[in-house]
């Protein structure tokens, strides 16, 4: 456990300047629920911790189109308290409610979760499925990037050392859409062994207009399984035609299996993850479809 200096900049510009100045000696500090554990275990030895909690990056704002912008320093529990999220992105509430413990969620932030780029993040798959964008700021200005391009490898993102993630932006959630994230884990506090996020939009009660399936915890970064998702687009699925939907699901799942070679490690073997993904994907497609159908009928 090395010693470090704690710095708390009062503005974004100051924060970026410090980060640019200190380079790899500095680590940005958000909720600290991962960072402090890693520091204590000697996995990281920062000389400076730069606390980002004084920059005013907390809170959820609703954009004109009905989408939302989530401040990167918003704690997970603060999102659970957001009525707008609860009403319009209830699947997100469901996910947040099953992350860590109350104590962890009171500190852990959305931005921290994303910037850690952990392969087991529960938020990354669903945010990718929704087509979220990340907004970041550096000394030379702001940029907006698709979350799809954000993760490079575990712990690595496209952000440069002096760049700060400020917001996660979500598009409006259509009345014809349904989304869900299912994960497999051993107990309440465990990390996911495998997770599947599905986001479907229906054209009408029969036809799937858009679909995105994203897997978490099975590879170094979350995977968008394009072929499997494409299989569902344009397909006619309805309640009286469940059998066909099941066939399509099975086909999609087979494609998922082909596109992904799951991680093989102490937490779970590759073949086990493969089996889990298959079953979770089938369940998730069904749930997302039912949810979309329900919201059309409302």
């Amino acid at each position, binding site marked *: 456990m090395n*010693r*470090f200096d704690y710095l708390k900049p009062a503005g974004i510009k100051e924060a970026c300047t410090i980060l640019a100045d200190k380079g790899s000696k500095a680590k940005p500090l958000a909720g*600290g629920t991962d960072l402090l*554990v890693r520091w204590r275990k000697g996995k990281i030895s920062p000389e400076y911790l730069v606390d980002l909690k004084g920059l005013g990056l907390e809170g959820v704002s609703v954009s004109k189109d009905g989408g939302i912008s989530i401040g990167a320093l918003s704690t997970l529990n603060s999102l659970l308290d957001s009525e707008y999220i609860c009403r319009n992105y209830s699947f997100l509430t469901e996910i947040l409610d099953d992350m860590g*413990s109350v*104590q962890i969620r*009171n*500190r852990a932030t959305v931005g921290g979760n994303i910037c850690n780029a952990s392969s087991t993040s529960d938020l990354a798959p669903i945010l990718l499925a929704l087509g979220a964008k990340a907004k970041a700021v550096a000394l030379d200005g702001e940029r907006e990037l698709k979350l799809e391009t954000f993760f490079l490898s575990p712990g690595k993102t496209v952000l440069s050392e002096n760049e700060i993630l400020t917001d996660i932006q979500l598009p409006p959630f259509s009345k014809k859409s349904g989304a869900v994230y299912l994960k497999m884990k051993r107990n309440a*506090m465990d990390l996911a062994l495998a997770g599947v996020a599905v986001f479907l939009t229906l054209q009408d009660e029969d036809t799937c207009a858009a679909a995105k399936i994203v897997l978490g915890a099975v590879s170094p970064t979350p995977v968008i399984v394009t072929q499997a998702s494409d299989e569902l687009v344009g397909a006619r699925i309805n309640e009286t035609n469940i059998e066909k939907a099941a066939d399509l699901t099975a086909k999609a799942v087979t494609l998922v299996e082909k596109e992904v070679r799951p991680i093989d490690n102490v937490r779970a073997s590759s073949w086990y993850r493969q089996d889990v993904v298959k079953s979770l994907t089938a369940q998730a497609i069904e749930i997302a479809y039912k949810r979309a159908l329900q919201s059309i009928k409302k």
Partner: protein
Amino acid sequence: MKHTISLKVNGESYEIDVQSETVLLDLIREKLDLTGTKDGCRSGECGACTVMMNGVPVNSCMVLAVEADGSEITTIEGLSKGEELHPIQKSFIEKGAVQCGYCTPGMILSAKALLDRNNDPTSEEVKKAIRGNICRCTGYQKIEEAIMDAASTMRGDEK
């Protein structure tokens, strides 16, 4: 690096010098001598070090003391009024929810955080509220009963 911070602990104001690396847990136990807060896993898993920070429970091992500058902290010592125990504390004793006692302070603060927000929780909500608090003795059943019972007492239900 040394920082001078001010914070309130159990209603009392302190101005105190801390190092950058000092965690809130060590400040509370070593500098303020409030040893009711327990030192467990130091990685946010066991919940023995749970305290309330500005009204919500946090793992004090995962918060730097300097981050707590300006905040209000409640530890287990802040729950009783003199000799008069808090209803949750009474209920834990009555229901036999304490065995070795190491998890108890954290468990009670998590319970308080729940009941502050929701005075009529379901047993499912109680389980979720204490999932960040590990007990290796009781098997949780009696803890759950104690929290449900305390909730009922605090609501003023007739028995």
